């Protein structure tokens, strides 16, 4: 996917102005998810779970070469064809070969953020393959030609009304059709696609190195159908998704479900261990594509590597009061919200993702929600510090902060500033910083006297 992260401030402002319904839909949905998460966390010794999950992820990330080799070995033993893709182009080449070899005309696709990174849908379209997103939310945004706006709820920004209108235009359903009726229509279209597709594409929540097992979590059953009905299954797996042992799933499956949606476990968990064997039903061919796409470089980053612990649960998005105002689209890349703000600079480049680390008030709600304790606020500060060091910040900001420092370094200048704030008609509408502030909040009204003056007045009678 081409990143448009640079436009974040403009796009966020435009969305708030032009599509106020998005704010309403996203706020409602994220608050709902957030309440569920809090309830689900409270049922278990969550502090201990998070600590264990963090430690396990850190272990696997710090021995990634070992676990990747082990995973590859086990997958091959299970009859899976393993590929390595360093870049999206590598992944495209592999997928193109599969499409050509099997004469694929139709593909069904399970929800996967990694395939958004890789641009799988545009590639398939260019190869003349008709591709169906089979997660209901993904299907909706595919019909609209939009990217996902949330890691777990890709259509979180849509209201029921908008969906009713979309289905009315596409399928002639009544404008007041119930959600159940709409789901039935989608189900009918997708059933047909499941039965006729030659290729099923998925991501993976986890890949267990010890056994070569792919683990996929979902609530609708479409992942299971996408990975079991077509004769060929291709799974794209980020190299950071590894877990050492099969038993680790006992922690990570429920932890991810609780963090993401507040469920104790997702409705469906698929554990895939290779193609169908004699007498079994299932795909004849299973491919696992282990994707780097910037992850190795990020792992080598002494500060930012911790973002690779991410389970893609979306809990930080649900907890984030900034994300809540706009949803994910203005962020301009696959990963939005707090995790996007720290992951995107690592996967793209800081220059390309520049404003994203500023898309936060550093309120810390994301860290509180994160099931693997990624220190998002600290990482935001790190990326901001680097952005300044690399000269990416705008000239006005540099000038303003240099001036601020000069004033604050000198009590004399600070007092002059204090006098000016009261004595002079401040050009509040002229200075860009002040204008940005006063437009929404009215002019700044300082106290009649600053405290440092009141202090002197308080102390003088005592003869000090």
């Amino acid at each position: 996917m081409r990143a448009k992260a640079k436009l974040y401030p403009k796009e966020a402002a435009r969305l708030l102005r032009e599509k106020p319904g998005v704010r309403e839909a996203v706020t409602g949905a994220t608050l709902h998810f957030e309440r569920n998460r809090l309830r689900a966390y409270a049922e278990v010794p969550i502090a201990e779970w998070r600590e264990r999950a963090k430690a396990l992820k850190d272990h696997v990330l710090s021995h990634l070469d070992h676990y990747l080799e082990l995973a590859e070995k086990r997958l091959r033993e299970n009859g899976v064809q393993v590929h390595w893709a360093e870049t999206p182009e590598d992944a495209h080449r592999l997928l193109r070969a599969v499409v050509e070899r099997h004469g694929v005309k139709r593909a069904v696709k399970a929800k996967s953020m990694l395939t958004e990174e890789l641009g799988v849908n545009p590639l398939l379209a260019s190869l003349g393959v008709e591709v169906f997103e089979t997660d209901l939310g993904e299907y909706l945004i595919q019909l609209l030609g939009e990217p996902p706006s949330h890691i777990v709820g890709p259509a979180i920004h849509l209201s029921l009304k908008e969906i009713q209108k979309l289905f009315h235009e596409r399928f002639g359903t009544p404008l007041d059709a119930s959600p159940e009726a709409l789901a039935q229509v989608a189900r009918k279209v997708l059933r047909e696609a499941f039965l006729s597709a030659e290729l099923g594409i998925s991501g993976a929540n986890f890949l267990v190195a010890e056994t070569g097992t792919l683990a996929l979590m979902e609530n609708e059953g479409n992942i299971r159908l996408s990975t079991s009905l077509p004769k060929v299954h291709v799974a794209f797996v980020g190299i950071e998704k590894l877990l050492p042992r099969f038993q680790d799933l006992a922690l990570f499956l429920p932890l991810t479900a609780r963090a993401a949606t507040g469920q104790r476990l997702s409705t469906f968990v698929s554990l895939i261990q290779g193609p169908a064997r004699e007498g079994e039903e299932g795909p004849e061919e299973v491919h696992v594509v282990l994707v780097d796409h910037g992850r190795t470089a990020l792992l080598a980053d002494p500060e930012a590597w911790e973002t690779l612990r991410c389970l893609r649960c979306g809990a930080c998005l649900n907890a984030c009061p900034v994300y809540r105002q706009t949803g994910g689209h203005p962020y301009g890349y696959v990963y939005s919200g707090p995790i996007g703000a720290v992951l995107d600079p690592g996967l793209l480049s800081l220059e390309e993702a520049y404003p994203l680390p500023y898309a936060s008030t550093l309120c810390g709600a994301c860290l509180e929600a994160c099931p693997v304790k990624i220190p998002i606020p600290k990482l935001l500060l790190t990326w901001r510090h680097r952005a300044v060091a690399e000269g990416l910040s705008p000239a006005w900001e540099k000038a303003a902060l240099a001036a601020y420092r000069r004033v604050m370094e000198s009590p004399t200048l600070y007092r002059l500033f204090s006098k000016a704030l009261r004595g002079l008609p401040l050009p509040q509408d002229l200075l860009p910083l002040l204008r940005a502030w006063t437009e929404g909040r009215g002019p700044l009204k300082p106290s009649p006297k600053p405290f440092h003056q009141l202090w002197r007045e308080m102390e003088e009678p005592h003869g000090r």
Partner: protein
Amino acid sequence: MRVALFITCLADQFFAEAGVAAVRLLRALGVEVDFPEGQTCCGQPAFNAGHWEEARPLAKRHLEIFREADYVVLPSGSCASMVQNHYPELLPGHPEALDLAERTYEFSAFLVRVLGVEKLGEGLRGKKIAYHHGCHALRELGVREEPLLLLREAGAELVPWEAAEECCGFGGLFSVKLPEVSLAMADRKIATLPQAEVLTSTDAGCLLHLAGRLAKKGVNLKVAPLATLLWEAYAG
């Protein structure tokens, strides 16, 4: 016990009376209060925006100015967190930064944790108060119960507020770098506000932002810093 008051630049300029209230209250509780006059700003705005080179000299000044104090007490969760949590990172090789971090307290936390005060008086009897949890006080310092306890013990009625623990959208430079998002966040806080007589918080920045937005939207609600209310609790 000698306490040096750090009044913070925002409180100095915009909530000066809260500083006076803090001095009066601390003295009434038997604490010797000093106000080192060379103080200005802790450097947080520059640090949070990534301009560490601009923040560092300010942090060093701050260490100098408060070197002698037994305790440094300030009416702001975010500035307190800057000193407690970020100075040690901003000033590696300065063990005094760790030392100052240990001696620095947000105002209500100092009253409860150090002075062991719970009940100041009953001056807030029957007053309906909405308390906004500043994010840094709440999540970086763990100051959640202290202000509520002090208000409640003084007879205040703390009104339940759905968004009490949500960020108000100030965020320092965030409010001018992303003004539309910042205002949308303030509007959510305001939209969920219950009936109250006063809106309070420990952070001047949040209050400045919320008070400005309330005024702009024509909502008539008194906004007062926590220190002002706590003095009222004591003095009646």
